[in-house]
């Protein structure tokens, strides 16, 4: 019985130490990446390729998600506020929800699924096939050549994607309000512009930058530290998406609380 208890406590202790050790490794990786991001050489071709991949090719999925979210939001809000002054309320709720929360979070989650998984799988495959080792022996630092371009491109693209997603989401709400709910277009647009706050845009952009950092850092970290062949690539990919998503949802609360709490 005592042996069982000791083993049980030992197993928990081991897991806890591993957890703390992994957090330490992650922050070392984070600090290393930031250090190498600001040191030459900068691989502009790689950065440009990543910008196209992360920014341009994520546009359809981000656009569709936010457009339909805006539409759903307009419909749901109208159903809930039909007894009140729904024309201004719907515009206000759609605008505030999209710019403060749904735009950044949905964009973040979509990019985590599409780009985070791709980054983790790509880097993990390079790790388990010794390509990263080979890079180091060919006069190139993997942190600068592989990781830094992905982080820089994410920090550039995700805020832009959020701004575009916000606009498309508001447009989705507008389409439903005008063509299905028969609102007055001028009044709806006027209400939207009236309630548009600079602080909401700033908060959304801050969230986008933080999400960009989370997605790229977490994905690169899991990819870079992958082991055990194909199984390791799968583990890195799944972990990067799950942990990025959880961190996005956690950090969105913290940022919202800091701005409006």
């Amino acid at each position, binding site marked *: 019985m005592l042996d069982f208890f000791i083993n049980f406590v030992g197993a928990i202790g081991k897991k806890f130490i591993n957890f703390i050790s992994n957090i330490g490794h992650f922050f070392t990786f984070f600090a290393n990446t930031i250090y190498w991001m600001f040191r030459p050489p900068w691989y502009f071709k790689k950065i440009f390729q990543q910008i196209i991949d992360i920014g341009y090719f994520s546009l359809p999925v981000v656009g569709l998600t936010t457009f339909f979210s805006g539409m759903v939001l307009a419909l749901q809000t109208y159903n809930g506020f039909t007894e009140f002054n729904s024309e201004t309320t719907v515009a206000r709720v759609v605008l505030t929800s999209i710019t403060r929360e749904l735009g950044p979070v949905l964009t973040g989650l979509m990019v985590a699924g599409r780009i985070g998984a791709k980054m983790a799988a790509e880097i993990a495959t390079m790790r388990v096939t010794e390509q990263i080792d*080979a890079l180091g*022996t060919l006069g190139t630092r993997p942190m600068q050549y592989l990781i830094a371009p992905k982080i820089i491109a994410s920090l550039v693209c995700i805020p832009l994607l959020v701004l575009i997603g916000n606009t498309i989401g508001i447009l989705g709400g507008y389409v439903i309000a005008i063509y299905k709910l028969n609102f007055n277009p001028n009044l709806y647009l006027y209400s939207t512009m009236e309630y548009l706050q600079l602080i909401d845009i700033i908060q959304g952009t801050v969230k986008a930058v933080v999400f960009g950092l989370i997605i790229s850092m977490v994905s690169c970290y899991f990819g870079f530290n992958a082991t055990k062949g194909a199984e390791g690539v799968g583990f890195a990919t799944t972990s990067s998406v799950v942990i990025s998503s959880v961190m996005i949802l956690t950090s969105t609360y913290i940022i919202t609380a800091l701005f409006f709490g």
Partner: protein
Amino acid sequence: MKNKLEKKIIIKVTDLFKSFNNNVVLKNINFQLLEGESLAIIGESGSGKSVLLKNIIGLLLPDKGSIEINNVEMVNLPRNLKEKILLDLGITFQHGALFDSLKIWENIIFKVANKEKMNVKQGKQLALSIIKQLGLQPDILDLYPSEISGGMQKRVAIARAICGNPKILLFDEPTSGLDPVTGSLIDKLIKTAVRTVGGSAITITHDMASVCRIADKVLLIDKQTISWSGTPEEMFKSANPKIQEFIKPINSEIFFK
């Protein structure tokens, strides 16, 4: 003996120990690679040959011991200095380790292109001049590694290693998975690279025919340490049971006639 003493020591490994999670992989490893020498390291799968190579190039840190390349101690050397030394080395990995996202010609000239600016035409010409020596066709230059066979990938990896004429060549199983004709071609190339450039090479291999063709000296890693060393000729006369196991499948006379 006198000639050997006069030769410069290129790589010197002294009392090297390496273990993973209390599992000892290498212990008390001592050897030297001399200028112009081609050294073959043999041993069973899992005997630690690739681990030894990774210790030499700094991808793994030994638990104990010293590794000198051109009289510079590599263990605990600052990263930037280590990188400078590694630039003088041509290395192939066991599975090729070609970059999937780059074309064949970009893979081959990767290191040289990092050092000096060159346009696409110059880069392709340089890559072409190297793959010709390896019996590869020019039309593969614009393909990606996934579009060529495993044997071709292996040869491209060797092309990448010898591009820029490095003085120290380290090959991890360069002929495994290749047909005998191509294997023989690679061996010839390794020998030529050592003789013409005045370089030195360490080749990890299971291919005893290859050992006979390329090696000036052979090391056997067994039971985590170097259990035998000598020339290929001495190897065929050796009574060491492990050496006997290695040479049994081949007829030595074929190679020495």
